[in-house]
């Protein structure tokens, strides 16, 4: 194992440069270190001006998504040892505006998340005093996978459709819409389908499956989109044949 490794980091400081540049730091190699540890080493000891987001360092808060050697990764779960002898190139996620260095602007996703109504929709709500909505373990299993999304944005960064068409509502938001659609407590699927159809989002997905490949939590957004397309297509055909049924 080497004693040090070169970490090449994308820098962008809008107050002093118009284009991103690369800066290389020589950092000690430790086999327990993840890429995020290396970035923190830079910030603490070499250059306090490097900016990036991070928080939990255990792969669940979703803050530290970046590209490592071209692939979207959670840097707190990506070990230096897998990239030796280096160099290791760290860049901000693709397809998002860069705010500063490795920090990208998430405004677009936050808007899209709200659009898909990711909450339980019911005609009648039970009072808490009346007890829980029953849900068997099997019913839980039907949507559980889609509920594991940590909003880390790796899937957007990997999605070629989102890269070409920023209006595409995107893998994570669709997976979360599907998470509620498939929840036995929810009655909002029709409402959400309308929103997704309006944004002609899902039709653009060519099922490349890159989103599912990079997902660190095995959410399988591509699967969610596929399911959605089927429901969407069925409803569309129904609306042609039986126009009154969707009212």
């Amino acid at each position, binding site marked *: 194992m080497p004693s040090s490794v070169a970490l090449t980091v994308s820098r962008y*400081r809008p*107050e*002093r440069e118009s284009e991103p540049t690369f800066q290389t730091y020589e950092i000690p190699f430790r086999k*327990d270190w993840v890429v995020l540890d290396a970035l923190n080493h830079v*910030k*603490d*000891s070499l*250059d*306090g*001006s490097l*900016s*990036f*987001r*991070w*928080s*939990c*360092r*255990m*792969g*669940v*808060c*979703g*803050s530290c998504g970046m590209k490592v050697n071209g692939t979207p990764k959670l840097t707190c779960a990506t070990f230096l040892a897998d990239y030796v002898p280096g160099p290791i190139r760290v860049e901000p996620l693709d397809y998002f505006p860069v*705010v*500063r*260095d490795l*920090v990208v*602007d*998430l405004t677009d996703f*936050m808007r899209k*998340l*709200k659009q898909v*109504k*990711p*909450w*339980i929709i019911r005609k009648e*709500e*039970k009072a*808490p*005093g009346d*007890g*829980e*909505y*029953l*849900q*068997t*373990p099997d*019913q*839980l299993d039907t*949507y*559980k996978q889609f*509920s*594991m*999304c*940590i*909003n880390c944005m790796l899937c957007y960064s990997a999605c070629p459709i989102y890269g070409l068409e920023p209006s595409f509502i995107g893998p994570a938001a669709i997976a*979360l819409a599907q998470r*509620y659609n498939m*929840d036995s407590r*929810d009655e909002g699927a029709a409402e959400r389908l309308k929103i997704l159809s309006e944004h002609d989002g899902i039709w653009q997905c060519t099922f490349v499956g890159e989103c599912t490949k990079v997902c660190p939590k095995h959410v399988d957004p591509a699967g969610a989109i596929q399911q959605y397309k089927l429901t969407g297509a069925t409803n569309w055909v129904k609306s042609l044949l039986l126009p009154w049924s969707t009212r």
Partner: protein
Amino acid sequence: MDLFTCDVLVVGGGGAGLRAAIAVAETHPKLRVSVISKVYPMRSHTVSAEGGAAAVIKAEDSLDEHAYDTISGGDWLTDQDAVEAFVREAPEEMLRLEHWGCPWSREPDGHIAVRPFGGMKIERTWFAADKTGFHLLHTLFQTTLKYQAIERFDEFFVTKLLVDEGRCQGVVAIELSTGQIRTIIAKAVILCTGGCGKVFPFTTNANIKNGDGMALAYRAGAPLKDMEFVQYHPTGLPFTGILITEAARAEGGWLLNKDGYRYLQDYDLGKPTPKPVLRSMELGPRDRLSQCFVKEQEKGRTLEGPYGHYVHLDIRHLGEKLIDRKIPFVRELCLKYVGIDPVKEMIPVRPVVHYMMGGIHTDIHGATPVRGLYAAGEAACVSINGANRLGSNSLTEILVFGARAGRAAAAFAAEQAGASSSLAAQAGDEQRRLEEGFLRKNGGSERIAMLRAEMHQIMEESAGIYRTETALKEATGKLKRLQERFQDLSLDDHSHTFNTELTAALELSYMLDVAQTILHSALERRESRGSHQRTDYPQRDDERFLAHSLAYRAEDDSPRIEYRPVTITRWPPGKRVYGR
């Protein structure tokens, strides 16, 4: 300077803050409520909670049992009126969360499933596999999106509370994306900023847990209560400090020393049985288990690795199927971060700083002594946790007391007229402090990382699991010098756009203040109780210390410690008994 006004301002977008915001929106739909947070809400540290949330739901359980477990678990330093309200309102809060979509694990018939947990006599811990905090946070966050009245300021870093005429009326904050300094005027402010684990070097806490709200309240004149009570969780992974949930032991995991011996049996925690027994052995309370580790280390019966001493958590006998169904995150974390599969190998663990029982002093409605200022969650001390929190009470606490603080703050805000005229001047002063003290400041010779490392060392050496007068006294002086050296800080980054060096500096100053209150409170409490163990005063002393410590910021910036009595309703102080 831009000025924004709202009715209720919630600082912090974790579980407590989001629950508070919903409570405002539901009880006073005409009020405008804003959530301001230095991170996007779904990044908040609630996300890392694993094991579960306690609430009485099963027929064989009772509110009194939950109250007694909580009170004895807290070594009688809990306020019993607060505990009674807590256990009473817990089931409804948890059901509300179920109705909002939280994917709770279920019984085969569709009812909520519960699991055992440390220090609890009856199974009452609701869980969503072992990602309970993650699901709870995302459910709450996604639910807030449906309320039009809730507005958010994501990635705004609060630097000061605006207090005038004895009333908190807003905050000054840095908008991280632009570096602009903003003033937000509010009729009531609720601090839900979480804990301060990062004052210690080895912690399960996320990078963002710097005691921001505690320091803000303390500087604004509110006292910090019971700050000497720091919870060490017995099972953290060496090096990373990543938490291995108590659920691993609740499902039947064993703690073994280097000889493969279940050492807890030597410390008055009961006899080892193959199946877990409630309030016994591995299901004892966290303070006791972490203390046993130190004793075991002193006897030379722990193992030693590159990151210090450790013992083994053995869950192999639970089998792959149960592990994957009930505690899959344990396996995921071990595979990823230790490179071992707990289905086949034992997990190395050691005690790790996990939770602050202490926090901003509030009454049972979340109100602090500063009018218009409220607090809830780990940032607050209400107090239901006393000298030691039981696992799975904190997630429930953020719901019950987040909602309570939200309702109380809304009622208060609804009765307030306009803001004082002097707030703009105060905000101007704060802007100058930030610009001149940090962004435009030249020179300085101290580095953030260096001061932080020294603070870590001071805290670990003096305020760890066992404490002494000498070490604490020396530590307060050392920390005071660090606070002075902070004035000579040098920054590399003077830009406005997403300046994380500036926020790290401000976080360090918060941590130094909070650390000082921990040391002084620990120094003054000359007894041993719960998580506060003084080797020079090994006994609990109810005569002198059945009381909450209150740390006020004194004129010279050092803490002044006062006491207030503990509220006892129905459970007179008794002996904590586990395993028999």
